[in-house]
């Protein structure tokens, strides 16, 4: 008996992430067009959502009046200084925890205790400690960046391939060389992905700090617009924040591509 030949059915595809260009942008555009259409036809009332084209106009005004940079520059300064302080201390402490058992035993519970505190709740305290000026804002942002950076860093140090460290020891490398040439580069991928999260948290805290007491800054601008129920300006501020988030993520992505070229 001869059975008819039948081709074997393919059942292997799927479950692989593929790169689709432009789809992300399309989602944005479609959502914006829907909002524009809704507000124009009255399907969405003006109280619910501002018209995207109006937001764009407000943004243009903001730019032309020069107020954009008056708000943006203090915000960016706070973000850069605060996040730099927090990330630097965070990476340092994280590496110490990763390298020394004593530091680990002493600091890990402390970090775990600090992590869940909403840092914004501490702003009044920071105002007393560091004054009402910029220092308290830097401190808040730094503090908020610090905890996720510490956790990511020591996890990254823990994950460095022990066989590489063993190799360094077997060639008689000094402790210093092992840390600088094996542990730190090996922990880099983990540290960078930790920074991705902690810098986003820094943006959130920046706005929070500015809402509580600043003349200029994106947070102050949003707060002002909110209290006047000026939705166009509110959304213009929110768009700036989103763009800031995308830029930060893009910058880290670029750094990763440069520094982690060796990754398979």
């Amino acid at each position: 008996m001869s059975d008819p030949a039948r081709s074997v059915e393919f059942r292997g595809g799927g479950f692989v992430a593929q790169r689709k260009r432009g789809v992300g942008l399309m989602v944005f555009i479609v959502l914006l067009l829907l909002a524009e259409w809704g507000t124009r036809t009255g399907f969405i009332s003006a109280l619910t959502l501002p018209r995207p084209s109006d937001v764009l106009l407000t943004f243009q005004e903001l730019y032309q009046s020069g107020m954009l940079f008056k708000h943006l520059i203090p915000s960016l300064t706070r973000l850069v200084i605060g996040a730099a302080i927090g990330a630097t201390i965070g990476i340092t402490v994280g590496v110490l925890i990763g390298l020394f058992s004593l530091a680990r035993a002493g600091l890990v519970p402390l970090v775990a205790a600090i992590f869940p505190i909403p840092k914004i709740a501490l702003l009044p305290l920071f105002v007393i400690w560091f004054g009402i000026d910029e220092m308290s804002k830097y401190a808040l942002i730094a503090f908020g960046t610090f905890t996720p950076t510490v956790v990511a860093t020591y996890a990254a140090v823990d994950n460095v391939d022990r066989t590489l460290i063993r190799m360094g020891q077997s060639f008689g490398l000094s402790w210093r060389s092992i840390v600088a040439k094996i542990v730190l580069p090996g922990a880099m991928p983990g540290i960078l992905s930790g920074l991705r999260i902690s810098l986003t948290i820094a943006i959130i805290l920046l706005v929070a700090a500015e809402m509580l007491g600043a003349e200029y800054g994106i947070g102050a601008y949003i707060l002002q617009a909110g209290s006047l129920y000026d939705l166009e300006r509110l959304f213009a501020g929110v768009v700036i924040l989103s763009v800031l988030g995308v830029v930060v993520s893009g910058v880290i992505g670029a750094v990763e591509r440069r520094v982690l070229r060796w990754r398979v």
Partner: protein
Amino acid sequence: MDLRLDNVSHHYGDTEVFRDISLEIPSGQIVCIVGPSGCGKSTLLRMLGGLEQPTSGRVLQLGAPPQGCLNPLTYIFQDFALLPWRSVRGNISLVLEDHKMTPKAREEIIADVLARTKLSEFADALPKQLSGGMKQRVAIARALAVNPAVMLMDEPLSALDSQTRELLMDDLISLWTRQPFTAVYVTHNLAEAVRLGHKIVVLSRRPGQIREVVSLETPLAERRYGDASLEAQQQHLWGLMRDEAAAADAELLHV
């Protein structure tokens, strides 16, 4: 420089890894250590190089390491242990950077070992661009760079496919023939042991003890793939190990 193990025993907690091992590693020879899995071959090798301390007994260095030796006891690992963020040149340079030498001297050493392992063209490649065999060649070059008195090789060819293994064995033999080095070569592959070993130490299963030491007289350069006398030696070794290996395989692990 010779190495000697003096009544070495070792425990991990309650598990006795090996018992009363005494062994001499004379300079200029390759000593192969074979044994069933879990008999403590790799632990023994880590002790020889000071990466682990035996519970009792001593590991002795006899005589001074030769002139110009930067790291007397140097390992070659099964998984290569190359830094993925450094090029081939950078990986070799890594082990020289902690020693006082002029940049020119360092470059000369790197160029020399790259030439000896036929890697000169690949100096700037990253490990991820290299095949397994090439990676192990880089690791061998790195070991040669510190001019070791004894090379401690921990299943260096086990992560490679059998063809690459043959090629690398030929490379090791020609390296040894040009300039005899001392090595301890741990393997579970008997064919490798009879090709490369001047002396083959057979360990029993846990707790590891020396069952027999086989000396092979045929010069390394004259041993060929599929040689009949080697085949006979391999048969003899397998006869020694067969029951041990079967028993070790059937053992439950208490970890």
